[in-house]
């Protein structure tokens, strides 16, 4: 994938976001992280990234609540949900209908490989062709 994009990763687990961000940066992307839903929404208000990674299970404000807030400030930004469980469990916990209404571009199982992550990013970018490029491009 040659497109360089800006990514915001909203997740309370720093030990997870650090290696993720390191790998994404090694591919040339700009990555910022937010440790809570609240901080994530604030970050989007300031500068909207090209793609948001959003953890489903977070304390205080969970992924679905955060996504609702994100949609209030930005309707179009592509969001990929991060899940440590298998997708079927997520479907149990939150109705897919609700997530789809809020506009989710995909799910990334945290245990999956970086190749899978690259594939998901590629697909999401293709579906959102109007994504802006960072000025350095």
């Amino acid at each position, binding site marked *: 994938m040659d497109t360089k994009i800006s990514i915001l990763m909203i997740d309370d*687990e720093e*030990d997870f976001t650090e290696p*993720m961000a390191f*790998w994404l940066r090694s591919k040339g992307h700009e990555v910022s992280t937010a440790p809570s839903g609240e901080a994530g929404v604030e970050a989007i208000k300031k500068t909207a990234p090209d793609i948001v990674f959003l953890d489903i299970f977070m304390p205080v404000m969970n992924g679905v609540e955060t996504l609702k807030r994100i949609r209030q400030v930005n309707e179009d930004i592509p969001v990929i949900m991060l899940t440590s469980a298998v997708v079927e469990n997520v479907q149990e916990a939150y109705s897919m209908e609700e997530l789809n209404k809020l506009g989710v571009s995909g799910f990334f199982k*945290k*245990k999956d*490989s970086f190749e899978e992550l690259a594939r998901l990013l590629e697909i999401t970018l293709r579906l959102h062709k109007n994504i802006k490029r960072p000025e350095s491009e």
Partner: protein
Amino acid sequence: MVDKKGKVLLMNPAAEKLLDTKREDKINKSLLSDLKDGQMVSLSKDGKRGTKTVEYESTDNETIKTIKSSSAVVQDENGHTVGMVSVLTDMTKQKELDQMKTNFINTVTHEFRTPIVAMQKSIQVMLSGATGSMNEAQNKFLAIAKRNLERLNLLIDDLLNLSKLEENKITMDVKEYSVEDVIEDITETVGTWITSKSITINKEFEPNLPKQKMDPNRIAQVLNNLLSNAIKFTPEGGSLTVRTKSVVGGLVEISVADSGIGMSEEECVKVFDKFYQIGERTTTDITGTGLGLPIAKEIVELHGGKIWVESEKGKGSRFIFTLPAA
């Protein structure tokens, strides 16, 4: 004890206490007659004949009581039903314990995933080369760490799966389906493994076998577990046989036979126990969690089938299960 219309004839003090009621209030009335609207939570029948579970909200302290009732029909000398005698057991405590166990397993397994995933991602980022090049030994040991984290994840998946099956929390999508199609799918999935061990797989399908009532995804899980075991215990160059046939009672019998080391009578009994493992584990083997057969057993029984094994030391094993024909 109730008459054939369900009206109470006799009731002992223990039953009075259990149903928090007075005998005088119940005699000649239907047992559940004075339950208020919404007080009844659920009434379910077990697979076993004459056993049902009643859940209702107790009047004095608004707690939900679970009562198991095992009943037998009372007949007169001419064989006519005159009433029914029921033995009631208070299952409330046991139900609470089961629920606690499930909650515990669910919480623990979810809590396990968080640190595992942090380790996995840290290892993956190093193995990807993003942190700089590594020598052969570094690569090797990170690969070992990675493989074992995958094993831990498999174990967590299986534990969660089994706990849901045991709690009947799995929603089954039952349809008319052919088990032969499932077998074809699974043998394709394990194809490379079979080839790598030069194992021959024979399929002996009965012609015109009726379709079966099943959730194909769940039965795929059963066959995957049985075939994986069979491949694991079949020596290089050996053979496997998958057979289907219809048997009496509207059932279809599916069997997976290997040409492996076989099992003793004792092992045949224990093999469906959780975490029971036969033989030595090789270091590169991440497929065995010791939960494959207990999971298969739960799934088959949820379908109303049976699973068992026939084996003799040194002569290979044959795992057999039944499914109801459609």
